């Protein structure tokens, strides 16, 4: 196993997935690092490393979400406004868009969120099933439902609407 090559290849994708999943770049960086350190301790063929890393990282996110108030607070905040605060060079329009995306993601069940975001990283259905822990045959159904749900909620958010379902879905963790 060429660890440096695997790291260079997978780190950007893993970080992007985790940042989208948690809404927190710092948490995404921490969990990325932890997952790769664990990979160092458990060398795997390159073909298996990606799926293994995403499985570990997804489980770490679940632990993180269960462990504390942070994600609840973060997602509530993102529902109310952009989190983290907009950078000076970030336009108001962009800030609103980010807030709408986060709010829409927050209103999707956590497992569906994982599935959607893994699909965005190019995982096949069988891999998604393995990482998320669902039956392979159910991935298509879950994806279709999550996709429609996201599109509907995001359209509401983008139009300035909203709902208070954030907490209900977070409680499913």
């Amino acid at each position, binding site marked *: 196993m060429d660890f440096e090559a695997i790291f260079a290849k997978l780190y950007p994708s893993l970080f992007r997935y985790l940042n989208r999943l948690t809404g927190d770049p710092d948490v995404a960086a921490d969990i990325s690092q932890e997952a790769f*350190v664990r990979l160092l301790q*458990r060398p795997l063929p390159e073909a298996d490393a990606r799926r293994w890393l995403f499985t570990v990282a997804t489980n770490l996110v679940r632990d993180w979400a269960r462990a504390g108030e942070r994600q609840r607070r973060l997602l509530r905040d993102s529902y109310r406004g952009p989190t983290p605060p907009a950078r000076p060079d970030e336009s108001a329009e962009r800030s609103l868009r980010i807030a709408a995306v986060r709010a829409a993601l927050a209103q999707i069940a956590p497992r569906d969120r994982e599935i959607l975001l893994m699909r965005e990283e190019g995982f096949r259905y069988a891999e998604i099933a393995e990482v998320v822990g669902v039956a392979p045959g159910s991935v298509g159904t879950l994806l279709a439902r999550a996709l429609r749900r996201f599109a509907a909620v995001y359209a509401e958010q983008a139009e300035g609407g909203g709902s208070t379902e954030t907490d209900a879905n977070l409680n499913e963790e």
Partner: protein
Amino acid sequence: MGHPAEQTLLAYLDRELPVDERSTVREHVQVCATCSRMLDELTAATRTLADAISALDVPAPALLASELEGDLVARALQELDAPVPAATTITPLRRRASKRPLLAAALIIIFVAGAGAAIPGSPLREWLARSVELVTGAPSKEPIDPATPFSGQGVGSPTAVSVQPRDGFVRIIITQPAPETMIRVRLSDSGTASVWSVEGRYRTAPGEIEVLDAGPGDVVVLLPRTVPSAEVELDGRLVATKEGSDFRLLIPAADSSDAEVSFQAGG
């Protein structure tokens, strides 16, 4: 065929269907306005999602593989049986910009001086047998039998050397070297290694640590398996090398037998 289910259309879009089923769905969608519209909606939703979540993306923080190795080294040091004293020095030398094949480029070495007790050796089992090729005495390409015992003192040397695989590491334990013994650890290319000694004084250079007057306390060298290239010398004599996944102990190893071996095969 009847109308395909929504998840079938999505699987069609994601190229998850077998070739024959894909052809069937394609032919159906071409003649069915309802399914064609549903496919368009799924396509649009897919684009919406991709476009929307890309707004969340930020650059990944710079992180080097060698920093992860450093993290692993630090964790391994914490696991050493003996306490690491407050006077411990940990000095990372950051990676240089030069690239292979320069020796000593791109390197971090962490070195720790400390008091401590003897670290038990261990048999060489799965990891060294399957993931790393170990050679004792004369070089050989034969992989080692996991059940092969390693015991006895180094031939021609009063110093016993044992090798202990751990998760992500190989520990090289030099037991009770003579007081004036010099131990040198040299890395080339990249990586992080650690040298831990009871008595010795340290001299460092890029890519290199020397332990002077090392005895009689034990010296422990930690080499992460990801270190691409490393050499360990005892009084100028090469006693261990690592090149990629090929680890060679060039003198017979001494071992106690009760430590757990936890390296996993692979890599």
